[in-house]
């Protein structure tokens, strides 16, 4: 993995952007987030999996849009004025993900993270960095970089 991981001080608290997918709350490393935008209908790309909605023009750059709700098999995926796209800046790649809403930016000390138990899930268990507890709520922390570069995501040409 990249420099990022090495440079991170493991003892320092990290900041996470949290968002909702249906009833679940997820968190991703805030440093991977470039910006947050409203949803606009993308241009469909043929032969793409259903959760890849297509590509949009982000100030001159062509950016693929992934609907996390479809990827994680959420019950419904509606597109309204509240639907939000988080633009991620992963290593050399820019990707947008569609979520129901963005909730917060929060700081979590490493001790607030619990290892995720082995569970049957649509999410590759390696992509879950851990679970954070926020009082009553549970936060699923995603290794978004790993998730997005996984082959089943269909974002990267095979062999790359």
């Amino acid at each position, binding site marked *: 993995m990249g420099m990022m991981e090495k440079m991170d001080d493991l003892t320092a608290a990290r900041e996470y952007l949290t968002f909702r997918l249906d009833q679940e709350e997820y968190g991703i490393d805030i440093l991977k987030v470039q910006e947050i935008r409203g949803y606009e209908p993308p*241009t*469909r790309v*043929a032969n793409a999996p259903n959760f890849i909605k297509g*590509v*949009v*023009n982000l*100030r*001159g750059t062509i950016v693929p849009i992934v609907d996390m709700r479809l990827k994680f098999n959420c019950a419904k995926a509606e597109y309204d004025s509240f639907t939000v796209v988080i633009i991620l800046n992963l290593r050399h790649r820019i990707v947008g993900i569609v979520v129901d809403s963005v909730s917060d930016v929060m700081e979590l000390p490493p001790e607030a993270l619990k290892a995720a138990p082995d569970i049957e899930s649509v999410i590759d268990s390696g992509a879950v960095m851990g679970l954070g507890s926020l009082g009553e709520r549970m936060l699923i922390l995603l290794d978004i970089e790993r998730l997005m570069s996984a082959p089943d995501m269909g*974002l990267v*040409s095979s062999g790359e």
Partner: protein
Amino acid sequence: MSETHQDSGSSGGDIDLSQFYQIFFEEAGENLDLMETMLLNLNLETADDEVLNGIFRCAHSVKGGAATFGFADVAELTHKMESLLDRLRRHELQPNAAMVDVLLESADASRSLLARHQTGDTSPAAPTGDLVMRIADLAAGNAPPVVAKPAAPVAAPVVAPKPAAPVVAGQRQLEIKVGPLAKPEQADAIAELFRDIPGLGTIQVLSSDRKDFRVFAVDTASTDDDLLDLFTFHVAREQIEIRPAAVMSPAPAVAVVDASHGFFDGAPGAPESSAAPAAVEASAGFGFFDGAPGAPSVHEVSVAVTPVVEVLGATKAVTKAAASQAAQPEAATIRVAISKVDQLINLVGELVITQAMLAQNSRALDPAIYQQLLTGLADLDRNTRDLQESVMSIRMIPMSIVFSRFPRMLRDLAGKLGKKVDFVTQGEATELDKGLVEKITDPLTHLVRNSCDHGIEMPADRLAAGKPETGTITLSASHQGGSIVIEVRDDGKGLSREKILKKAKERGMDVSDQMSDADVWGLIFAPGFSTADVVTDVSGRGVGMDVVKRNIAALNGTVEIDSAEGFGMRVAVRLPLTLAIMDGMSVGVGDEVYILPLSSVVESFQVKSDAVSTVGQGSQLVKVRDEYMPVIELEKVFQVPRFDFDKNSDIMVVVEADGSRVVLLVDELLGQQQVVVKNLESNYRKVPNVSGATILGDGKVALILDTGALVRRSRH
């Protein structure tokens, strides 16, 4: 589609090569810098093949360019360097420190020779004969001659120009005596003048033998009258006495002149010092000229012992000349990072989209009430359009810029080789990204040169083979299936399979007689591979194809070779469109818009349902005039969802790619427009049948079809 432009070799002399000089100087500079870095990092005991090849290629490129533009001195020197380097990379010689020294010196010498050509300096150049001899000696395997101790010359050129820096032409050292004054402090205001007025000069208070007098040492470019005019603000004219300072040695003067002030010398108030700024810039600001003033290292070997003062004087004089002549070309162009231009292009694209949105929303406004607003919007429309065009044009340049380099080169080359060659160019108007043009020029030069040197036969041989006496080299460029294809064709003798295989075996390469033609042709891309019988200064060292392949691979491009022995050879360089403007035709399929490269569109027409016939497993063919063509339904290929069942695909567009034609079925033709090709793969994966994407006027993304892939698809 592409216009053909006939340009026989004899008319090549009309073309003004000087417009390309700048590009060459920049390239050569970069190559020499690169070579120097590699030489300095070269590990003598365990010299890396890659590095040796790299150094060799640098020398080769400089030589090639210098020969093209007729800089014989540079070409000769670099040719010698190349010979030495060639032996090194073949491991016929072991690199040693003396060689590195000589090569470094030669690089310096080449640089200063180039600088002389660049500034148009016509004074006699420093002789390179000694260097050439030393290189030849080393290349022959002899020990370095003892006379030329390498350490001294390296230091000399660096040291020499430096002391010249602060000495400003037109500066005078004066002693100014002010008094008698009732209040001597009054005179301090004069000292303040020098502090406040930039460019006036410097002042120092000297000790005075009388209390009511003040004495200053002044260093200025201004005239006495100007100084007096200034001083009379503070003291009476009669109380000022200006006289030249006692002759001083240069050393203290250097110490006094403030470098930062020196830059402004000759600014208002210093009319007579017009030469000053040039000299300052040349010596202080632009290290660029440091090598220029005819202080080539070789020459200085013996000079290094002469008194410093003399070297100083000489350097100063030449620097001035070089600076004044160089001023013009420098102002003509600026080099800007491509990323900045890209950013500009993106921002302008956004601006255009915003403008389109404003125009859309203002359409409903009542012109009577909002007249001013609407006039403003119309201006905005025009200005953004102009702006977009100008910004785009920064990056895009027509291939003719590259192509027109060649007629002259070919003419000289053909003359030298005793061959007769016609040069034909096609598709000169094809626009190509500036970045690509810069990088494609070198490989193309190699290819064209190879064609002339190895491909085209001697007139007598051609006649004997039943061919016209004059050979033809064709250079063509076209947009094809989302790539730019540049071809170099000749009707010469082509590649010889046996010769290549024989050579490969001699070199111990892993080959067999059963290899396919394509694989055999591929062998010529190996470093150092050449089938030429004689190594000339033109080609034959086998470096060309190696460089070509590398440079093009670095651009994500491919090189294909086609050859028929006795009939000629074709080298096709295919480059991806990273950023190119393309004429596109937008077509509608369902609710979606796709872009077809206009260059591949042949015609379009309404389908008559009985014109389509089915063959075998549902493949459809349509008869267009006398030709049957496969039909591709874009709706199926791109799985376009259809909501409006009243519409259907009943328009056929005939496209041509890779020499075959197919018919695409679309719903409607939406129009033609210039589109900026965007890379889809920078953030996403490769999409079949799509070569890229573009942004439409409304800010939406449209995919550009890869007609080449569609044509290939129909073949299977």
